[in-house]
């Protein structure tokens, strides 16, 4: 199925598909009672009636792909876990959401933590694991409270612990708070961190499926990927495949932010476009136009208003030269200086580079020096080629994707906005007024009037 027949109908009721977010507005939505009222833990019952291998095949057939950025098929990740090897197996949920612009897992866990817990039990049954971990970034204490509470509720109700629902499955979940490091969102750095070390990526192979946590077979999945599993079991893989496209089936959370009229979470079938999302939600803020945006966080090459009709699925965004990433749609209008935006992102990558690989550690440092000079009007024209060259020396030359992410905004902004860089150099400074970009910029005159 494709979305094509629906493209003409722009009504939000047709274009959106709240599943995980369907009852976030209900009182006490994070509790077990409310979750069960919405058929919570029904997917688990269906899963436990299947054999683990059939369950893995079912999730694979559904076409669910990872929602954390890379889009790797979730069922295939589970299938890679060697069986009968006599070693413990682990499931680790990556709840370290830190990619700039990304803000989907945090509201999901705040409002509906049981969807994750149910998904984890199903996944652990499939991969034969009896101990799972939620690695939550530490800087979100309100979410930590609700995870503590939801896990305790699940134990009390017999969904966790020994012999879950009489199935013979034993499972413990440990909620683990990180301590502030973007790099721990990278799965092998996350595993090192969970082992009590500095969060630095590991060389692969071996992949975590073979040698992950404590060198045992480990599945690392994003929050949204795992939380989507119960609905697939409950409603069926055909239902899931009825949304999105052949290669990118299902629903997902799109996070709209920046200079838009209605920033927030929009759950929709994969393949919706930014134009559709903006048209249904009131567009950009009044009197302004879209200048540039990211399809999936700052590490995905930026787009411009030429890309409003790119289908936001893995293939569509990839074909247009970027990546779907985390579906973090950060939208900036014409008041925003692209050099300022890229400089700030690059400062972030330099700060968060773990220091293990030289191209990333040194390269991000030098990118920051060059960009700060350009932004301050102290750059020269040859700096632009130098930026490109340094980014090229980082991209693909480090253990993990942080370096590639750091190169993305450089490459893409130079591609679409080279003139704006040149203006900073020839004009000896930034032509933009940052006050005009603020959330309150357009309100002052009206309010004072």
């Amino acid at each position, binding site marked *: 199925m494709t979305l094509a027949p629906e493209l003409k109908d722009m009504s*939000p009721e047709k274009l*959106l598909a*709240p599943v995980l*977010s*369907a009852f*976030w*507005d209900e009182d006490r939505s994070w509790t077990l009672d409310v979750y069960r009222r919405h058929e919570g833990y029904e997917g688990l019952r269906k899963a436990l009636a299947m054999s683990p291998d059939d369950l893995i095949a079912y999730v694979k057939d559904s076409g669910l792909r990872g929602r954390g950025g890379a889009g790797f098929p979730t069922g295939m990740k589970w299938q890679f876990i060697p069986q009968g090897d006599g070693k413990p197996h682990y499931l680790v949920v990556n709840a370290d959401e*830190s990619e*700039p*612009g*990304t*803000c989907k897992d*945090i*509201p999901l866990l*705040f409002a509906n933590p049981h969807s994750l817990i149910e998904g984890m039990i199903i996944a652990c049954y499939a991969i034969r694991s009896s*101990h799972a971990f939620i690695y939550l*970034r530490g*800087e*979100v*204490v*309100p979410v930590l*409270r609700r995870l*503590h*509470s939801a896990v305790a509720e699940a134990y009390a109700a017999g969904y966790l612990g020994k012999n879950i629902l009489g199935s013979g499955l034993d499972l413990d979940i440990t909620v*683990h*708070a990180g*301590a*502030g*490091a*973007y790099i721990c969102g990278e799965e092998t750095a996350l595993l090192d*961190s969970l*082992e*009590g*070390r500095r969060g630095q990526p590991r060389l692969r192979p071996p992949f975590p499926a073979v040698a992950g946590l*404590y060198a045992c077979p480990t599945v690392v999945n994003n929050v949204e990927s795992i939380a989507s599993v119960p609905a697939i079991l409950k409603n069926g893989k055909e239902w899931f495949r009825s949304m999105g496209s052949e290669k990118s089936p299902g629903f997902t959370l799109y996070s*709209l*932010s920046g200079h838009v*009229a*209605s*920033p*927030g*979470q*929009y*759950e*929709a079938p994969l393949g919706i476009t930014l134009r559709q999302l903006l048209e*249904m*939600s*009131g567009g950009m*803020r009044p009197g302004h136009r879209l200048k540039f945006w990211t399809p999936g966080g700052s590490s995905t090459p930026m787009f411009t208003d030429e890309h409003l009709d790119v289908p936001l699925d893995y293939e569509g965004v990839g074909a247009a030269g970027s990546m779907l990433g985390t579906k973090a749609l*950060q939208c*900036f209008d014409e008041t925003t200086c692209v050099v*300022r935006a890229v400089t700030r*992102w690059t400062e*972030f990558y330099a700060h968060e580079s*773990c220091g293990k690989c030289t191209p990333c550690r040194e390269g991000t440092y030098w990118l920051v020096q060059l960009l700060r000079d350009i932004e301050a009007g102290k750059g020269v024209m040859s700096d632009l080629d130098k930026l490109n060259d340094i980014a090229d020396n980082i991209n693909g030359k480090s253990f993990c994707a942080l370096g590639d992410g750091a190169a993305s905004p450089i490459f893409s902004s130079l591609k679409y906005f080279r003139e704006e860089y040149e203006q900073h150099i020839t004009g000896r400074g930034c032509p933009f007024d940052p006050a005009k*970009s*603020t*959330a309150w910029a357009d*309100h002052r005159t009206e*309010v004072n009037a």
Partner: protein
Amino acid sequence: MSTSSSERGVSLGMPELPAPDYPDDVRARLERDAREIIARYPDSRSALLPLLHLVQSEEGHVTRTGMRFCADMLDLTTAEVTAVATFYTMYRRRPSGDYQVGVCTNTLCAVMGGDAIFEALQEHLGVGNGETTDDGKVTLEHIECNAACDFAPVVMVNWEFFDNQTVDSAKRLVDDLRGGAQVAPTRGAPLCTFKETARILAGFPDERAGAVEATGSAGPASLVGLRLARGETAPARVVHPREGGPHDEPQDRAVHEPSPAEHLSSHDAPQDTSASDPAHPAGPVAEEGE
């Protein structure tokens, strides 16, 4: 050679003396907590991050004593513990305030007003990045993206969410913190001290009544898509908790539980622009210092 190397603040190879131990009663209490944390993991070393949060909850920052305690409990060297403690930004390495005020200055929040807020707070409090006010109440710092971009600009206090901030609301926020008023976030529980927060991070649930329930199921921006999908005409309105920006009639009362600090301003009448700019609270009536 009249001054020793340590007096000159330069270490020339003489190792520092081991850090002093905790007093016996403190150590006994922390050991009980530490054993509970270690029992959650198949391998004891995995307990190191939570243990560092635990010692931070004791002293407000990670001291040499705290690191030695972690090393003892996990059979690691203090060098191994120090290597980890210095890698992660949430571990403080010097005494700081009761309230850590973090202003997001990653690109999106910075552009939306985070830079202006951070600058104004530095001036207002008379402190720079990472510094603490003289009364020991507020430590100001700029932070990286905190996964709340649809609520930009965002300020975190002790890692609770203060969404949709303005220069004015942020100034009022730090004034309230310094004045000892009970301050409630837009998403999260009424504030506790930094030390108490660190204990939750170590994995000990917040036992305060109402802490888990506070501020309802979801913030307004989290619900805009859901409401559109249901055919509800207008997306959720932000009812700003600390700022007298223009409000609409609060349509989201069911999910938004007003904090005690919240008040409806005199600008309640719907305005033309807010119809198309609903989830953004307007800026302050008059920006201070401009």
